[in-house]
């Protein structure tokens, strides 16, 4: 979901769109797997993790596959061109890794029925187009528990990007989890209207710290909030990849996207001829969502609690959105004993009890 990265795309274009060597066909005719990235592989976040997945495919399947990637591809006409080019140069499987590639992917897929396509975070499918995304909220549940235990001021700060269901779901998951271990916790949210603006993210973090937050969470892509937290001596949770380098003392843990297992599994399926279109929304269980190493400053019992929750989510005994859940007005929206279905989670547009303020309209 990198809707707001237009500027990033321009930069990539100016740097020269780079097509990694696709190589010559070898004797065994390896399967050519193509990847389309929205940002540069060095963004230290979203695209970086997708590229790690590509590297893992090469490692796991060796000379049975040949991967290539195109980075910093703008979402739009350029994406259609790049995907067409990959499809017409003998790629058997193509991963398009940003929400905005949805229509280009479906359009190109129609013209190349033999090529398999995998589109991240979208909802349009076809016989040769599958979709996949990650249940980041499962990670948010665990970090919410840790934050609820670590806070002294009982105020959690949350630097948010855009008020879309994915972001709101993360905020709510943190609030519910933190309050389950510490009912006094409130979550303060500041929206910066950008996926990526280090200066503004840092300013938002500082504003939250000034107002009493002592654990900083974020749903934006730069490590600036972690760095701001380190500068003011409070805790922080990293986003999308390990951000320890930017705040070694503050960094409690980070939610990491790990696409490698899925990419390897799907590539194998194409090699075996068992590939089918479908929709995968993976979390801790499938290994798509992970946590980076815990800060040694977290007490052992808190680590144990976090690990128990993580294992509970894997075996199904814990659900981040389990009733009773109240909205901000205190009205019960999910009864005790029930868990929220995927459809409600995917369209989430309300705050739960414990989150301060209103969702910007």
């Amino acid at each position, binding site marked *: 979901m990198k809707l707001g990265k237009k*500027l*990033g795309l*321009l*930069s*990539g*274009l*100016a*740097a*020269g769109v780079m097509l990694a060597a696709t190589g010559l066909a070898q004797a065994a005719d390896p399967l050519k797997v193509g990847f389309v990235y929205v*940002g*540069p592989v*060095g*963004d*230290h976040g979203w695209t970086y993790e997708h590229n790690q997945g590509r590297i893992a495919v090469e490692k796991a399947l060796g000379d049975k596959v040949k991967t290539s990637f195109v980075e910093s591809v703008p979402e739009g006409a350029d994406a259609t061109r790049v995907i067409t080019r990959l499809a017409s140069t003998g790629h058997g499987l193509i991963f398009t890794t940003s929400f905005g590639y949805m229509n280009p992917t479906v359009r190109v897929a129609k013209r190349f029925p033999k090529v398999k396509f995998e589109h991240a975070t979208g909802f349009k499918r076809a016989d040769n187009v599958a979709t996949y995304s990650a249940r980041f909220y499962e990670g948010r549940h665990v970090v919410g528990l840790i934050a609820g235990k670590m806070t002294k001021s009982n105020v959690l*700060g949350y630097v948010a990007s855009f008020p879309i269901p994915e972001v709101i779901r993360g905020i709510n998951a943190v609030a519910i989890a933190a309050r389950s271990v510490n009912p006094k916790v409130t979550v*303060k*949210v*500041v*929206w*910066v*209207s*950008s996926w*990526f*603006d*280090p*200066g*503004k*993210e*840092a*300013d*938002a973090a*500082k*504003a*939250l*710290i*000034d*107002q009493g*937050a002592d654990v900083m969470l974020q749903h934006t892509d*730069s*490590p*600036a909030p972690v*760095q*701001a937290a380190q500068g003011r001596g409070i805790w922080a949770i990293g986003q999308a990849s390990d951000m320890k*380098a*930017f705040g070694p003392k503050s960094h409690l843990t980070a939610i990491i996207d790990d696409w490698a297992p899925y990419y390897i599994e799907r590539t194998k399926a194409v090699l075996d001829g068992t590939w089918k279109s479908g929709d995968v929304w993976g979390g801790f269980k499938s290994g798509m969502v992970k946590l980076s190493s815990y800060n040694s400053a977290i007490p052992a019992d808190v680590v144990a609690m976090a690990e128990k929750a993580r294992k509970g989510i894997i075996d199904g005994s814990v659900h981040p959105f389990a009733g009773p859940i109240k909205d901000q007005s205190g009205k019960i929206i999910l009864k005790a004993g029930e868990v929220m279905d995927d459809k409600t989670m995917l369209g989430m547009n309300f705050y739960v009890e414990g989150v*301060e*303020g*209103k969702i*910007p*309209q």
Partner: protein
Amino acid sequence: MPEWFIPFLLSVVTASTPFVFAGIGELVVEKSGVLNLGVEGMMIVGAVSAFAAGVTTGSGPLAVFTGAFAGAAMALIFGVLTLYLLSNQVATGLALTLFGLGLSALMGHGMVGKTFPGLPHLEFPLLEQIPVVGPLIGTLLLGHDVLVYFSVVLVIAVGWFLNKSRAGMVLRAVGENHNAAHSIGYPVNLVRLLAVLFGGAMAGLGGAYLSLVHTPLWVENMTAGRGWIALALVVFASWRPARVFVGAYLFGGLTIMQLHAQGLGIEIPPQVLAMAPYLATIVVLVIISRDSALVRLNAPACLGKSFHATG
């Protein structure tokens, strides 16, 4: 006084200073009759160069100098293309921005994930111990990094230069009527080149402030559109140095205030604030354009026009 007030003021100063540098630089460029839309590109190259120099040498002053130098180097490309090869200023400026964004990404490849300790602050512990007013004075006037003080000195110096010095008058003459300036023997393109270089150095300094002080790290596109806001500020300020300063703090203040307001539960749509500086610029443009005399008084008459000496 609520306890968040002093940190709030501190945040405003750090958020506003990059705009002051980039804005005052572009003002001088435009006063000489050149429109350089490449501020964003010069800023980002300044940011990455300063950060790279800071990380490799560990020296703050050297990092700052490198940032300014890199901005000026970018401006030199623009100056040669538009002044001597007579390319279109608008198109060249836009290209400079795109080039700068790409170049900085390339230059910063190995810099992602590194950190820099920041610049030294001036401390006056005795003054801050004065009861009641001490902390306020300490926050407002003292204890900032050196670049903040330099930005204030810079605005005053540019104001003096443009209005009181002979060289400044020549620069304005070149911007108002390059044919007349040429006919009485002033080197029009040389004056403009120097102004462009100064503008580039200041934009680079603004970028350096971002990567060394505001958020001491390097990530691609970290200027995030601040160069465009600096451009808008020059028009908003109707080409007056003091007003660039006020405008920069007004905008920096609005941004920080909006973030604090959200935390305090006061509802202002963040999107409204994001468009505020541009909206203000349009309003100011409409107001000053109503009266053609006012326009002539403020905007350099030869802004954006190429000069080619004939005869």
